[in-house]
Structure formats: C-alpha cells, structure tokens
C-alpha cells in the first residue's frame, strides 16, 4: 500500500503538488490521468524517490521513501521515467541484466539470468537481446527499459507513460502485459497514461489530478463520464458505452 500524506512540491514559486493526500492500495493497475502540468509525473517521481519534496510523507509498504535505504527500496519498487538516455554502449540483455543489480550487486547467478530471460520474452525482445540499444527503434528501446524494471522483480512498478513511442500493437500488448503483471504475478502497477481510453479499458482504478490536487479517484465506470472528464480536462468530452466499457470520444 502506498500512502501519500499532505505532500507539497514546489519549483521556486510554483506549487506543483499542493497538499496531496492519497492512498493507493496494493494490487491491480492504477492509472494516473490529468491534463498537462497536473503533476502526474512529478507525483510518480516522488513516490519513486527520484524527486525530493517540501512537506508531507510518502510510504510504500511502510517504508518512508525519503528515509529508507536505497537498496532496500530497490527490492520493493521500481520506477521508470519517460526519458532515458544512456551514453554507454549496452546490449538489450545487458540493460535488462541491470534490473537484477539490487539483488546480485553485479554478480549475477543462474536465478538472475532466468529473471532476465523471462523479462525479455515477456516483452517480445528475445530476438533482439544481443542488439545494442542504439541500433533499436524508439519503441523497442522503450520495451527494453520496461523489461529492465520487470526483471527487478519488485512488488510495485511505477511507469511514466510507458506507451510513449509504441505503435498500436505494442501499446496494446504493453497494457496487456501490465495487466498480467497485476493479475498473474500479483504486482502493483501504477502508470501515468495520456490516453484515457487505455486507462478506461485496462485499469482497475483511475486517479485524476489537476493543478497538483486530487480531483477524482475510483473505478473507470465512475470516472469516465462526461461530467467528471469535463471537470478534469476543462473541455466537453463525449462518452459512449461500447461492449460494456466506457470510451471517451475526445477527437472533435
């Protein structure tokens, strides 16, 4: 369980997260949505202890993210940002192997190699395992990074827009994979999504932020509705019921 309590984050005079309190239960897929500048990525980074904050506390399974030792947290939560630029020349397998660092500290065992192989095949990367990262397309590289955090084998997976750069096939299979991580492996997946229909289709819970505050949270049925979406995005959005799921028509 992730407990966010009265958290405030400022950049200079701008308040990005304004006294946010939120509890994210363990298990399932939680989607963070909201307009640009709502603080979704900032919140994800703060839970993943990549960003310091001015006030409040965040705990993950009782571990305070600002105080708990880094290597202890690395076995509990893995976080992946949107932009990942690596200068070193790495193959896909080597990158995914780094996901085992919190467990093996650079000396991989047979079990670590199994985890790497499984993560590679989960993300359909086995054929590309020995290619260098700079020889891959943006989408393939994105999948390689997701395979790395998957190999880290943590209870919590925090992903910032993992569908970026992915084509239709791989976007859908990425969401399917995150679904399986939650259903089959019992992981807690928290993901920032831009496309609310992916959130509606695949998430168990949606958390909507706006101007650094919590506006709505709940299951997709309760959130993907014209009145709530209009409030979140400040624009009229039609919603249709298709095959028992709510689909937002936000293209016009």
């Amino acid at each position, binding site marked *: 369980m992730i407990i966010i309590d009265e958290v405030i984050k400022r950049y200079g005079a701008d308040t990005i997260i304004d006294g946010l309190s939120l509890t994210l239960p363990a298990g399932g897929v939680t989607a963070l949505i909201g307009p640009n500048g709502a603080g979704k990525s900032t919140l994800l980074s703060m839970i*993943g*202890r*990549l*960003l*310091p904050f001015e006030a409040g506390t965040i705990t993950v399974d009782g571990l305070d993210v600002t105080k708990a*030792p*880094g*290597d*202890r*947290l*690395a*076995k509990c939560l*893995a*976080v*992946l*940002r949107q932009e*990942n*630029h*690596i*200068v*070193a*020349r*790495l193959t896909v397998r*080597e990158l995914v192997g*780094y*996901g085992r*660092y*919190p467990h093996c*500290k*650079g*000396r991989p065992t047979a079990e670590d190699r199994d985890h790497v192989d499984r993560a590679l095949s989960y993300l359909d990367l086995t054929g590309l395992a020995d290619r260098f990262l700079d020889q891959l397309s943006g989408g393939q590289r994105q999948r390689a990074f997701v395979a*790395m*955090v998957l190999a*880290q084998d943590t209870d919590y997976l925090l992903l910032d827009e993992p569908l970026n750069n992915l084509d239709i096939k791989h976007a859908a299979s990425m969401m399917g994979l995150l679904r399986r991580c939650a259903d089959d492996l019992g992981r807690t997946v928290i993901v920032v999504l831009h496309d609310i229909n992916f959130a509606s289709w695949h998430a168990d819970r949606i958390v909507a932020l706006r101007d650094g505050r919590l506006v709505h949270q709940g299951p997709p049925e309760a959130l993907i509705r014209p009145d709530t979406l209009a409030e979140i995005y400040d624009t009229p959005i039609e919603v249709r019921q298709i095959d028992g799921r709510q689909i937002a028509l936000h293209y016009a």
Partner: protein
Amino acid sequence: MVRALDDNPAAVLVILAIGAAASITAFMTIGANGQWGFVLPFRGTKVVAMVLVGFAIAVSTVLFQTITQNRILTPSIMGFDALYLLVQTSVVFFIGSSALVDVDPRFRFAAEVAIMLVFALLLYRFLFSGGLRGLHLLVLVGVVFGVLFRSLGNLMQRLIDPNEFAILQDRFFASFNRVDNDLLAISAILVLGVTAIGWRWRHRFDVLALGREVSISLGVDHQRAVTGVLILVTILVSVSTALVGPVTFFGLLVANLAYLMIPSHRHMLILPAAALLAVIALIGGQLVLERVFGLDTALSIIIEFIGGILFIVLLLRGAR
C-alpha cells in the same frame, strides 16, 4: 581480425598490456650506452612517474565522464588545472619564487592536494544540496570558476617580476624531466588507495553510467556515490597535475580510444584499457621526444600531435 577483437575485450586488454610492457622495455633500453647501474634507476624513475600520471589521468577522465554521462567533458572543465596554476602563481606572487624552489616538495604537494580537495568538496556540497540537475549546474559553475582562476592567474603573472615569471612558466608545461622523486612515493600510495576503493566500487560505476534516475531506481544512493567518485577524481587529478603539470586534453583522448576499443559498458574493462593506453601514449611519446627530437620539444606538443591524428581516426571511424 578487428571483428574478432571487437567481441573479445579481454584479448584487447592483453594486447594493450603487451604494448605497454613493450614501450616500457624500449624506453628503458634503447640508446642505453652507459653504466646500467645509472641508466636503470634514472629512467626507472621517469617510467614510474609516467605510469602514475597516465593511470591518474585516464581513470579520472573515465570516471568523470561516467558520472556526468558525457564523453566530451573532462575534469579540466571543472577548473582543476586553472586552480593548480592559480595556486602556484599566488605563491610566487605573495612569497616569491624562492618558496616554489626551497619549500619541501612533499609539503607543497600535500598542500596542493588539500587545496584541490577543499575546492571540489565546497563546490559540490554547495551544488548537490540543490538535488535535481546538480551535475549540469556543477559543470557550468566549473567553467565559470575555470575562467575566474585563469583570469586571476593571468593578472598576477602580469604584475610579477619577469625573472619570477620565467620560473613559474616552466611549471606550466607538462614535462617528465623535472619529476620530483620525493613526490613519487606519496603519489604511488594515493593512486594505490584510489585503485583499491575503485575496485570495490566497480559494479557501482557501471550503474552510475546509466544516469541518475535509473541508478536510484536500482538502489544506488546517487548523491553519495557521485560525491565519492568526485573525491577519487580530485585526488587523481591532483596527483597528475602536481607531478607534471596540466596535461588534460590527453584524458579525453585515451578515454575515447578506450570506449572505441572496448565495446563494453563495464568499467572493469574500460578503466584498465584507458590506463594502459595512457601509459603507451606517454612512454611512447617520451621515447620519441628523447630519441627522435633530442629533447628539443615538450611532451605536451607530442601528445597533441599524436592526439590530433588519433582524433581524426576517431572521426573517420565514427563517420563510417
């Protein structure tokens, strides 16, 4: 053959080690037509100095590039060499050149290392408290400090006696002919200490090269690890500048050559490769300097010359 080597970093390391051993042997023996009892210790001292300096420059540059995630930056960007020159200029300016010549060199060396450590500690303490983008800010401040120190040094050099300036100028150019024997022992101890710590941290270096966010996610205390690396880099740069003066362009060269020859991300392979390349380049360069040019020129000029050629090779290979 090149293809086969590409896949086998260990073979590349062995070849580089043989090359380093060959250049040391050549340096020790070529043209030695006198008493061995005189020639060996005389040249041996120079070899030890060059090995220490080559190792220090190569390792400090690679580690610095690892934590900044940038293969063009070197410690000189942070203003180290400029500070070194400023320290020496200030001594001559305020006390006179006798201080440079008379004071126990070991004491002077210790003072120089201490000043550089204090400088680096102050700089990053102040900068890393900001958290995000610490390194970029650090490098920017380093550039500004470099210009400041250089300008201050230039001002003092214009104000001092021309005779004193001549003594000072002699120290501004890298030369292995005025290495101080007393300093070698201390330098060797410092370099060995740094190596021992670096060996323990070798896997952490690999993770740091992945950048701040990924390192933190993988459980490395990024701020502390970077601080530790900066201390190592500071000590190594102090050793090399105090021994022979600033030769910092050289680090860029051997580091990039090492990345090119070792297509791996593991510092366990890259660091020895860079150090061996540095030893080959320095000792080979000094050999050419002494035997071909008859000591008519400074080693830094040879290094820039060889460096220029290799840099073109780098560009051509990169363009292919």
